[in-house]
């Protein structure tokens, strides 16, 4: 089923093992080349922790279910630290073509809630297949030149 980044922000995160609430979705970390969500950041700010996509038992419409709360961990490297701090968020990020021209800001991103695979990037009234994503970081998401108007 198709889900959206914007709709998923703030969704509650619950442990399947203990049924305890663990917090709310703060950020989603992605691998741009694989067009894949790699981890869910729970909470925001310095105390936020993350859980890898493979440790979810479901990304549901009402709650994100984590197999076991033991799977939550702090950021392990610089890139994850940037991600936990929200610097790598796709939402609101400037989109650049690989030719160096701005295409607008990313308003939303849709993904398959089963696999975590990115589907489309929403920029204004355009929907761009996530396959056009060449890279993404703190400054910009870079899209294939075929996406220039």
């Amino acid at each position, binding site marked *: 089923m198709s889900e959206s980044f914007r709709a998923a922000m703030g969704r509650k995160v619950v442990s399947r093992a203990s049924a305890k609430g663990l917090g709310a979705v703060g950020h989603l970390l992605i691998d741009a080349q694989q067009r894949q969500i790699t981890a869910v950041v729970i909470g925001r700010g310095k105390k936020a922790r993350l859980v890898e996509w493979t440790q979810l038992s479901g990304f549901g419409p009402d709650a994100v279910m984590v197999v076991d709360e033991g799977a939550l961990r702090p950021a392990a490297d610089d890139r994850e630290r940037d991600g936990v701090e929200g610097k790598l968020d796709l939402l609101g990020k400037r989109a650049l073509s690989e*030719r*160096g021209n701005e295409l607008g800001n990313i308003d939303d991103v849709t993904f398959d809630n089963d696999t975590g695979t990115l589907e489309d990037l929403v920029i204004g009234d355009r929907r761009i297949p996530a396959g056009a994503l060449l890279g993404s970081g703190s400054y*910009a998401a870079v899209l294939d030149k075929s996406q220039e108007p």
Partner: protein
Amino acid sequence: MKLLMTASQIRGLPVVTVRGGEDVAEVRDVIYDPEAGRLVGLSLNQRGFLAGRRHEVLPADAIHAIGQDAMMVLEESSLVTPADAPEDVAHPATERNVLGDDVLTEGGTSLGKVTDLVLLVGSSGEVVGYQIDKAGGGQGYIPLPAQLAVSGDALVVPNITEEFVEDDLVGLGATVDEFRARLGLA
């Protein structure tokens, strides 16, 4: 129709990695070879207000694309130390600076003085013209052929250049192919 930018518009552009989406530097200045009519590279500043010079340079070969909003490189490793850069990028010959040069036609008419370089957007650094202070006053743009001769004092252009002096970059972008076709270069 070609999209063009001046070197002044390129200064200050962020240098962004295609694969990382990171702004790893910004353009300090263009390094230009007037005989070849090509950008040979860029010197760089660190990113951020008053951040200062960055030691590395960006050879033109490593430019993925020049855009209106960013200078694109594949990866941060595209930036190299002067020791690893081609000689003309690491140690540009300052006497080859054409800014301030008098633009003379082969017939001996002065068209004005060079104030800036004009580059083709989307390319990796083709210089297609010059911005000039026109001999008769005001700013203009001339297309660039394979130059006939250039020194620190003047550059000599074909007589037909006089017919192709444009008032703005859009005009130059529209006319540069026709100019080159007339010279048998296109």
